[in-house]
């Protein structure tokens, strides 16, 4: 299946700052990709490059098979974008604004009304369409922002902090909407709310200091990579190193160890068998699940060695 977004080796330089450094992003239909990273990591620059607002200093972006720089009109047609605080026109009614957005999205005249009504209905705005946007609450303005992003039924939806400032009920509604949209579209979701990522996303890409530090499926991320082992009569530490699938062993306290390995979850049965066969007195073998929060903190707390700088001139 061809990718909806293929962004390769993106760089973005602002004078002295290398804001995005060799980041590649791929999105397929059905993906809900979380773009994570601390403030200033380069997430927004990545999103703005993908949406064609800013040009990368180097790299290539293919949107739904169209080169964003060679055929920007066609490429942008496949994207719907919701910025963090939805910049709307307060003097327009919801209906007027969505009509304006649809026309700019080149929606055909005979499709305009049904698509507008569909967007209004999907975003829970039924009954509000004649209201001025400026008179709406933040939650409803957020819905209008999402409605303008989906009105032309794009293949790709980019949502930047879609639940910021919403109350818990609204957050759940927006999350459900994202899940629903994710069945038919590819979604990129930029957020700081990690439980939200775990609730709705199936892929995670983390950006730190302008570089991509992790790009995995959520299921892979959740795989156990650590386990705790307690033995009654343990052998020497060197002997424990021979345990299948184990790459590193750390003694936490006497007879109690922390095992680390890349595919440790698939080796747990073998490890327990190995302990039993060697009469080490297996008392405990408990997998330790990695939370997204732990991973986020681990990956974003350290400095990343910087790659050679690329200036705009070099990139051009």
């Amino acid at each position, binding site marked *: 299946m061809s990718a909806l977004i293929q962004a390769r080796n993106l760089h973005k330089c*602002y004078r002295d700052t290398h804001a995005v450094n060799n980041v590649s992003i791929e999105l397929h239909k059905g993906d809900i990709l979380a773009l994570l990273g601390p403030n200033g990591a380069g997430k927004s620059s990545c999103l*703005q490059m993908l*949406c*064609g*607002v*800013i040009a990368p200093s180097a790299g290539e972006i293919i949107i739904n098979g169209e080169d964003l720089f060679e055929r*920007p*009109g*066609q490429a*942008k*047609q496949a*994207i719907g*974008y919701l*910025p963090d*605080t*939805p*910049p*709307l*026109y307060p*003097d*327009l009614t919801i209906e*007027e604004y969505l009509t*304006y*957005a649809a*026309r*700019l*999205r*080149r929606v055909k005249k005979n499709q305009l009304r049904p698509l507008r009504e569909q967007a209004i209905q999907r975003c829970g705005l039924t009954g509000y369409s004649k209201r001025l946007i400026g008179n709406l609450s933040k939650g409803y303005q957020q819905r209008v922002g999402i409605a*303008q992003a989906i009105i032309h039924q794009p293949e790709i939806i980019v949502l930047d902090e879609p639940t910021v400032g919403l109350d818990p009920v609204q957050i759940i509604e927006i999350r459900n909407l994202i899940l629903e949209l994710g069945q038919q579209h590819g979604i990129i979701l930029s957020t700081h709310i990690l439980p939200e990522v775990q609730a709705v996303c199936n892929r995670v890409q983390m950006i730190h200091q302008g570089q991509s530090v992790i790009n995995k499926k959520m299921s892979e991320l959740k795989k156990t990579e650590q386990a705790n082992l307690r033995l009654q009569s343990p052998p020497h530490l060197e002997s424990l190193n021979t345990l299948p699938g184990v790459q590193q062993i750390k003694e936490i306290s006497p007879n109690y160890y922390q095992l680390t390995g890349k595919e440790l979850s698939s080796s747990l049965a073998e490890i327990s068998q190995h302990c039993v066969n060697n009469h080490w007195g297996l008392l405990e073998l408990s997998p330790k699940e990695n939370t997204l929060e732990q991973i986020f903190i681990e990956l974003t707390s350290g400095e990343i060695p910087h790659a050679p700088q690329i200036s705009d001139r070099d990139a051009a």
Partner: protein
Amino acid sequence: MKMLWVLALKEIRDGLRNRWIAAAIILLGALALALSLLGSAPTGSVKASDLDITVISLSSLSVYLIPLIALMLSFDSLVGEFERGTMMLLLTYPVARWQVIMGKFLGHVSILFIAIAAGYGGAIIIMTVFSGGSLDGWQAYVAMMMSSIVLGAVFIALGYLVSVLVKERATAAGTAIGLWLVFVVIYDLLLFGALLLDKDQLINQQLFSVLMLISPTDSYRIFNLSLFEGVSNAAGIAGIASEAGMSAALLLGVMSLWIVAPLLMTLVIFQRREL
């Protein structure tokens, strides 16, 4: 072209909703009516038509008013959208940057066209009814209306240039007022000051004409006051433009340059601007 109209219609709708168009129509219409009623007194003595006298008074006032209205329409049209973040969202749509500028320009010029056509046009209809159907001098009046739209377009384009150059709306507002003062008041004062100080008569008629032509507001004044016989006779400047070699085409050409140059500069700066 369709995209330009979508963007233009949005500006026109904003103009209607914000009562901009209504205010401009009332202002221009009221001025035209007041000037035509008050200014018709000397028509008997100078043998000029009511409309000729009205053109003289109105063009003298329009030179102040139209640039002000145009700058107020345009000064924040780009910087305001940058500040609100709507420009960034707009650029994620399949719309080219030049279309954004030209769409806004089309919309704002349309607003001005509606205001001038309804304000000045409505006034001429009322005047015609009051004067018993006399339309003597209507050509000068229509030319004044058309050139007012061109003058407005000049200052809309200048407003965009200001709007793309600055980072805040407040700065744009200040700069727009400064621009208005320079083109409408200060430039002419400096010109006449230079003439008064020029005892060696270094500024000959040709140079003076060129200096007048540089200013779009002076081009507008000369166009309206000297190209039509009835008006120029009544204004007391008959033959001045033709003696100085200023044809209607040249004067309109100069004003058109004042539209094209700022628009092109705005487009180039906007194309290169990082949001």
